[in-house]
């Protein structure tokens, strides 16, 4: 049938070309296209449409409703002259750097230890991964209680006789980000450990044998052979952990609610507060556009590395 259509199209010339185009675009494979309509709608309306809408309206002075005048980059100027936003960005950078290094570092270390033919491996695995099943709200609230200055860990150890013991990170503006870090690591390290463990298991035994024959010490094999071979796993982990960090919101709401003062504010929370709390939509949109920009800075180099060389992947 398709051949027939093609033949007809060849005979018909330009008009046939158009009808063939219409036929291919709309009629051919029709039920598949109907079935995939929700996906196409999601891509076109939400992922493309909504994103463009947000970027466009971030250039207006909309306040309670998105109906403002075009004002260029004024919202962005205001954004970067607002101390709360600047604090948010710096917080995210500090938290992000520590979180990335520690999640990957501890995740890799635990995976290496788990890969030493140990006993009770599945028990260890279960224990390390269960926090990942819990929500950030639960995570935040548990750690909020543990870090309660008077009745939590600090109070308990002081009651036991160590009077000068201090663990007041939730109320200490300089340490509160590390309180977030402890809770964030608790939730996320198990997942990275599983990823890394899968990566380690994927490395050919022959490589280990060869390294052993050459008398290379185990740690050296890990550093010089295994780590470079796991580049792909590390890149995936960086991308996943990184885009999670940019989204960081629930954990902050539950654990610190941005406090004390504004010392643990993060961009996602700034966006939410301006959009739904302060009634300054364009400001929230500008902030969310900056979040998008950050994610793109992480994603685009990765996408280029992973999918750039078309022939390499398949």
């Amino acid at each position, binding site marked *: 049938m398709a051949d027939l259509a093609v033949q007809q199209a060849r005979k018909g010339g330009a008009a046939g070309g158009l009808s063939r185009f219409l036929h291919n675009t709309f009629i051919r494979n029709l039920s*598949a296209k109907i*079935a*995939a309509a929700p*996906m*196409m709608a*999601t*891509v076109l309306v939400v*992922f*493309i*449409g*909504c994103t463009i809408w*947000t970027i466009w*309206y971030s250039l207006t002075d909309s306040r309670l409703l*998105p109906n403002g005048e075009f004002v260029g980059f004024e919202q962005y100027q205001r954004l970067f002259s607002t101390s709360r936003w600047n604090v948010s960005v710096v917080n995210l950078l500090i938290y992000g750097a520590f979180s990335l290094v520690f999640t990957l570092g501890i995740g890799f*270390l635990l995976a290496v*230890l788990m890969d*030493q*033919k140990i006993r009770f491996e599945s028990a*260890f695995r*279960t224990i*390390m*991964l*269960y*926090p990942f*099943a819990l*929500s*950030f*709200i639960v995570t935040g*609230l*548990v750690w909020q*209680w*543990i870090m*309660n200055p008077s*009745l939590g*860990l600090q*109070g*308990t150890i002081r009651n036991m006789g160590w009077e000068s013991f201090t663990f007041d990170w939730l109320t200490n503006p300089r340490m509160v980000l590390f309180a977030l870090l402890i809770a964030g690591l*608790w939730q996320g390290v*198990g997942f990275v450990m*599983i*990823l890394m463990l*899968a990566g380690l298991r994927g490395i050919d035994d022959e490589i*280990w044998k060869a390294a*052993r024959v050459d008398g290379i010490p185990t740690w050296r094999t890990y550093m010089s052979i295994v780590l470079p071979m796991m580049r792909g796993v590390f890149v*995936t982990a960086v991308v*996943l952990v990184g*885009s999670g960090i940019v*989204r960081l919101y*629930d954990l902050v*709401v*539950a654990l610190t*609610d941005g406090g004390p003062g504004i010392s643990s504010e993060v961009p*996602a929370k700034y966006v939410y507060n301006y*959009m739904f709390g302060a009634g300054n939509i364009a400001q929230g*949109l500008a*902030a*969310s556009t900056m*979040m*998008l920009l950050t*994610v793109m800075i992480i994603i685009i180099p990765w996408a280029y590395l992973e999918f750039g060389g078309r022939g390499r992947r398949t």
Partner: protein
Amino acid sequence: MSQTATISSAGPDEKPKSDSRVEPRGPRPKPFFTPRKIVIYSILIFACLYFLFPLYVMLTTSLKTMPEIRWGNIFAPPIEPTGEAWVKAWTSACTGLTCQGLNPGFWNSVKITVPSTIVSIFIAAVNGYALVNWRFKGSEIFFTILIFGSFIPYQVMLYPLVMITRELGIFGSLWAVILVHSIFGMPILTLLFRNYFAALPVELFKAARVDGAGFWRIFFEIMLPMSLPIFVVAIILQVTGIWNDFLFGVVFAGTQNYPMTVQLNNIVNSAQGSPEYNVNMAATILTGLVPLIIYFVSGRLFVRGIAAGAVKG
């Protein structure tokens, strides 16, 4: 690693010896407490303490009475365990506005999770099937954008979606949350199903095609019955993900439909009066219970589900 090498080389070979002594047979017994092993296990056990401590604290605190908590020993097990805090958390804890406990939130979460899971998985299964077996012009482009779209921070699309749901007249209702969960669950689930269907032998599809079966018939009669395992993975992934969601619930559901996570946060963080830590912890466990049960029951499938996020398409 180096140990196993020496053991296997010293292992099975039995050299005939002129000695009259009895040679031990078999591999040399491995000493369990080598320094290396001690270091490995102590680090792992220390890590496990860090991971288990919050669970222990949650449980013990929730079983204590408030006077006992005020003594200030977070490590101590409850002297006389009581379920009062659990009852209060479930039925009468205050969220700042109402004092009905968590149970309305629980049922709201059920009402959100069940339809969202079904709708999102059905759409994704059809997507995956169409992308593998019924490719059309541009289908791969849509798929690529879908995958990259999953990295866009939700905050970017949040406000336009509020406007869209408002236009549709469903903002502030369960429908809005279900729609949003179906949208944002689509990338990962579609990837999951696409990879699964791509691994099935294509001859099955071709044979059904030759026999004259159409798009939906092949989907329902051949593909669905064969994809039970991936459905289980998808269900685990979606139920835990949607149950744990906070942002969409708080934005789209409307006050009377707040899911459990939102109500939990309100109970703990915006309640008036002196905080009751035992009730807070009981409420926290109750909220975490559903995903925890799923996690402990499903075991390896859960790992497969979350690892799906890391698998490249």
